[in-house]
C-alpha cells in the first residue's frame, strides 16, 4: 500500500483538519493562528501538486471513502457504485492545483491584510472551509457530493463576503449572493435528484454509462447548465458577482475567483463526461457559446465605465468567464464530429482549459493588487487615487504584469490562451472571434485607465505618507507573479504538461467512465 494512493482524500482532509483545529490553535495567540493558515494552505498546495504528478504518471486516480481497498469502486455483486467516490483525472488535478495556488497566495496576503480586525479565528476557519469546498468540487466523482461541496463553498463564502460586517455594502452583497446562490443550488439539487430517480445512481461515471437523451435529461441538463453558469457568473445572471467580489476582503476575492472556476469545472464536467456525445451537437453548445459572447461583451463594456477598482475587476471576471465559455462551447459543438475536433475543436478546449488557469492566476493577482491599494490608501474609488507608482514600486510592477496578461498583450500567458480561442472560434464563425477581439481591446482600454489613474500622474498630498505594503502581502502577490511569468516564458512546457493532458482527459468520456465502471462501457 503506497501512501500516494491516499492523495485525493488527503487533499480534502488536510484543509478540513486545518479548519477544525483553528479555534483550538487560536487560543495560542495570533502568531500560531497565522502559521496554521499558511501551513495548511501550503501543505494543500504540495498535496495538489503531488496528486497532479501522480495522475500524470499513472493515470486517473480513484478513491473510495471507507472501503477495504482504496480503489474498489464496485464491491462484489454491485452493478453501480454506492460509496462516496473521489475521481481525479488530469483535468480535475489541474483544476485542484490551480485552486490550491490561489488559496496559498490569498492566505499569505491575508496575514498582513487582515491584521487589526476582530474575529480572525472565524476568518481562518472559513478560509480553510472555502478551500475544502473548492477542492472538493474539482475532485469529486459524484453528483450529490458535488452539490455538498458547492454548498460548503457557498456558505463559507457568504460568511467571508460579509466578514467586514461593519460595512453595510458587504452585508448587502452577501445577502444578494445568498439569495441567488440558494435558488440556483436548489434547482441543481432538483436536477441531481431527478437523475437519481431515473438511473438509481449518483456517480457521474455510472450515470454517464447509462444515459439516454430523453425529455427529462434535457430539462436536467438545462437546470445544471444554467445553475452552474449562474454560479460562475455568466452574463444575465452575473449581477451578484461584481457586488460580492468588490465587497469581500481581497484575500477572499482571490479565492472566490478559484471557486467560480470550480463551478465552471462542474459545468464542463457535466457537459463532457456526463452527457458527452449524447448531448447532441446543436442546442446546448450554442447556448454556452451565446452565454460566453454575451458575458465577454457586456461584462467588459460595464467594466469600462466603472470607477470603483474592485468592482471594475469584478466586471472583468464576468468578461473573462465568457472567453472560457466560448472555448468550451466551440469544443462541445464538434464533440461528435471527429474531423472538426481534430481541426479546431481540440484547440478550442485547450484554449478554454489554459484560460481557466491563466484567469485564476492573473485575476487573483489583480484582486490582491487592488487590495494593496485599499490597504495603503484606504480608498477603492479610482477618482481619489493617483501617483502611487513611485510609492509602491513592487505592487506597480506586479499590477502591470497582471494587467498585461489579462489584456492579452503578446509576451504574457493571457495572449496564448486567447490566441487559441480566437483561432478556433474563427473556424466556426468569424463573428465569434470578432466579438472576442473587441472585448479584448476594451479590456486593455479599461486597464490602461486603472493604471493611468491609480499609479501614474503627479504625486498627491493625500498620499505623502503611503509606503510599500508589508512583506506578507508582497509574498502573496509574488507567488502569483512567479507563476504568471513562468507560464508566459515557457508556454510549450505548460501546454504539453498541464493543458494537453487536461484537455485530453476532458474529451475522453470513455476513460472517465472506465476508471470507475471497470471498463465495462
Amino acid at each position, binding site marked *: 500500500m503506497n501512501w500516494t494512493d491516499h492523495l485525493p482524500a488527503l487533499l480534502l482532509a488536510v484543509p478540513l483538519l486545518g479548519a477544525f483545529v483553528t479555534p483550538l490553535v487560536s487560543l495560542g495567540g495570533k502568531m500560531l493562528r497565522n502559521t496554521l493558515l499558511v501551513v495548511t494552505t501550503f501543505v494543500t498546495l504540495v498535496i495538489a501538486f503531488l496528486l497532479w504528478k501522480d495522475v500524470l504518471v499513472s493515470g486517473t486516480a480513484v478513491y473510495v471513502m471507507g472501503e477495504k481497498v482504496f480503489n474498489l469502486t464496485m464491491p462484489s455483486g454491485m452493478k453501480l457504485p454506492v460509496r462516496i467516490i473521489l475521481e481525479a483525472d488530469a483535468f480535475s488535478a489541474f483544476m485542484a492545483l490551480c485552486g490550491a495556488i490561489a488559496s496559498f497566495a490569498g492566505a499569505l496576503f491575508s496575514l498582513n491584510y487582515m491584521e487589526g480586525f476582530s474575529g480572525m479565528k472565524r476568518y481562518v476557519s472559513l478560509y480553510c472551509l472555502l478551500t475544502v469546498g473548492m477542492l472538493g468540487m474539482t475532485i469529486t466523482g459524484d453528483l450529490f457530493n458535488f452539490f455538498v461541496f458547492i454548498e460548503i463553498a457557498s456558505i463559507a463564502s457568504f460568511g467571508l463576503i460579509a466578514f467586514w460586517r461593519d460595512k453595510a455594502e458587504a452585508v448587502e452583497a452577501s*445577502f*444578494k449572493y445568498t*439569495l*441567488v446562490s440558494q*435558488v*440556483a443550488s436548489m*434547482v441543481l439539487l432538483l436536477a441531481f435528484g431527478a437523475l437519481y430517480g431515473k438511473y438509481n445512481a449518483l456517480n457521474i461515471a455510472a450515470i454517464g454509462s447509462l444515459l439516454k437523451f430523453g*425529455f427529462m435529461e*434535457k*430539462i436536467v*441538463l*438545462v*437546470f445544471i*447548465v*444554467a*445553475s452552474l453558469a*449562474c454560479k460562475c457568473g455568466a452574463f*444575465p*445572471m452575473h*449581477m*451578484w458577482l461584481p457586488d460580492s467580489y468588490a465587497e469581500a476582503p481581497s484575500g477572499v476575492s482571490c479565492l472566490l475567483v478559484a471557486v467560480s472556476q470550480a463551478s465552471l469545472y462542474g459545468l464542463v464536467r457535466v457537459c463532457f463526461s456526463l452527457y458527452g456525445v449524447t448531448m447532441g451537437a*446543436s*442546442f446546448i453548445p450554442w*447556448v454556452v457559446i451565446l452565454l460566453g459572447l454575451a458575458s465577454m461583451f*457586456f461584462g467588459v*463594456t*460595464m467594466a*469600462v*465605465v466603472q*470607477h470603483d477598482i474592485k468592482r471594475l475587476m469584478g466586471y472583468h471576471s464576468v468578461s473573462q468567464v465568457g472567453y472560457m465559455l466560448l472555448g468550451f462551447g466551440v469544443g462541445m459543438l464538434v464533440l461528435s464530429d471527429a474531423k472538426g475536433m481534430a481541426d*479546431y475543436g*481540440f*484547440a478550442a478546449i485547450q484554449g478554454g482549459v489554459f484560460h481557466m488557469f491563466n484567469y485564476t492566476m492573473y485575476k487573483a493577482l489583480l484582486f490582491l493588487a487592488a487590495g494593496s491599494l485599499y490597504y495603503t490608501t484606504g480608498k477603492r474609488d*479610482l*477618482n481619489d487615487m*493617483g*501617483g502611487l507608482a513611485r510609492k509602491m514600486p513592487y505592487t506597480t510592477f506586479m499590477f502591470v504584469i497582471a494587467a498585461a496578461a489579462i489584456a492579452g498583450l*503578446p*509576451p504574457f500567458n493571457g*495572449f*496564448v490562451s486567447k*490566441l*487559441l480561442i480566437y*483561432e*478556433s472560434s474563427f473556424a466556426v464563425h468569424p463573428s465569434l472571434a470578432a466579438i472576442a477581439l473587441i472585448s479584448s481591446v476594451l479590456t486593455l*482600454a479599461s486597464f490602461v*485607465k*486603472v493604471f*493611468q*489613474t491609480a499609479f501614474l*500622474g503627479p504625486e*498627491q*498630498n493625500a498620499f505623502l505618507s503611503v509606503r510599500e505594503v508589508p512583506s506578507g502581502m508582497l509574498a502573496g502577490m509574488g507567488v502569483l507573479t512567479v507563476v504568471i511569468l513562468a507560464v*508566459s*516564458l*515557457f*508556454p*510549450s*512546457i505548460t*501546454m504539453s504538461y498541464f493543458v494537453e493532458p487536461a484537455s485530453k482527459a476532458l474529451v475522453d468520456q470513455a476513460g472517465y467512465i472506465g476508471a470507475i465502471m471497470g471498463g465495462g462501457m
Partner: protein
Amino acid sequence: MWGVVHTGFGSWDALAWILFFGIAAFFLLWFRSLGRSDYKKGTDQDEIFWSSNVVPEDGAHISVPADAAYWGFRKGMEPFYKGLVGMHTGLAPDIVGWYVVVVAIMSVLILIV
C-alpha cells in the same frame, strides 16, 4: 523549442517576442541617449509646463480622474449604456429573476429544438 506553441493554424513563439522586445529596447535606449543632456537644471527648462499657469502644489488638482477617461466613448454609446446600466438595478429579486428567466427560456427552447 520550449517557447513555441502550435495552435493548429499557426504558432506562437514566446522567445522570438522577447528577442524582439530586447532589440526594440536597445533601439529605444539608443535614441534616448541621443537626446540633449545639457539643459539647465533648476531653471524653467526643468519645470512642468501647464498651459502657462502656475503649477498647483497638490498633485490631485492636475491629475485626470477616472470618470474623465473615455468620456467620448461613453457619450457616443449613451443609449447602449442607458439600457445596460439600467439593467443592473441592484435589487435582490431582480438578480434571481434573471436567473429564472434564463432557465425558463432555455427549458422551452431545448424542448422545441
